[in-house]
């Protein structure tokens, strides 16, 4: 036995969680700092630009945002159900909940894309503001929500891959739990994006 292997055998794991779970927590920590930096940048840019426009009317933008928030929060609940069922060994029930989570994630992305298409249709671009104010409004909105949407779409794909592997017995309940941690993090980020980017920019 090598020295490091002997140490690992004699010393208990400090967090008493599998290494893959610690790995996803490290990823979440780094990703939270990334989103934190983007939201701080948005905040300071907004304060530094007196000609900042508020692009969102209550109808349809904020109502659409409320719908997206409810959908994402509900998808976290279905993800928890998938994790619990997978831990109880009920594969088909876990797969049904994973499917529901994927469907809700896809619906969230579709509503978000519809929002983007409407904004682009009314002249908003990454560096263009049709209302005549600073172009940074579009830059920050599309950057922050685009990065979040990328996380949602990636999450839907990952849940699908893990679900398929779980059905075939290649992945375990632990993999479902770790995927769930990522999905809840995506939900957690939206809990800050919705009030800071949408509600604070309501006309």
């Amino acid at each position: 036995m090598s020295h490091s292997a002997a140490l690992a055998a004699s010393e208990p794991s400090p967090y008493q969680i599998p290494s893959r779970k610690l790995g996803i927590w490290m990823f979440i920590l780094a990703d939270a700092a990334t989103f934190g930096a983007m939201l701080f940048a948005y905040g300071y840019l907004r304060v530094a630009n007196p000609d900042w426009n508020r692009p969102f009317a209550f109808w349809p933008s904020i109502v659409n945002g409320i719908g997206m928030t409810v959908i994402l929060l509900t998808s976290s609940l279905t993800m928890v159900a998938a994790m619990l069922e997978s831990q109880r060994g009920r594969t088909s029930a876990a797969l049904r909940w994973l499917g529901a989570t994927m469907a809700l994630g896809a619906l969230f992305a579709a509503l978000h894309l519809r929002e983007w298409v409407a904004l682009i249709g009314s002249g908003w671009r990454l560096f263009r503001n049709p209302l005549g104010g600073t172009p940074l409004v579009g830059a920050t909105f599309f950057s922050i929500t685009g990065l979040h949407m990328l996380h949602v779409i990636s999450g839907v794909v990952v849940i699908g891959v893990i679900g398929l592997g779980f059905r075939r017995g290649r992945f375990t309940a632990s993999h479902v739990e770790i995927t769930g941690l990522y999905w809840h993090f995506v939900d957690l980020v939206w809990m800050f994006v919705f009030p800071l980017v949408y509600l604070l920019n309501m006309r």
Partner: protein
Amino acid sequence: MKRYVVVWMGLLAIVAAEVVITLARPATLVLLAVLLALAIVEGGLALLYFMHLKYERRNLLWSLIPTLVIVLVLMGHFFPDAFRLMHQRGTAP
């Protein structure tokens, strides 16, 4: 599962509160403070219950959360320097 449904309902209630407060049109700084506070409560509930930090060993929570808070506080502290430096640029020779 019942516990998670209660947390989910609590999260929905917080979102509803955020929208109602925004519609009341308070001053922007007041709105920012209230929305941030509510978002932190929401995030805390998601971390503790949906992400199970409440049921892990305490040292995991104490390793992760203060680290993130320190990083975010330092970001908030040093980001304004980017604006100060913009004004310190000399003119081209």
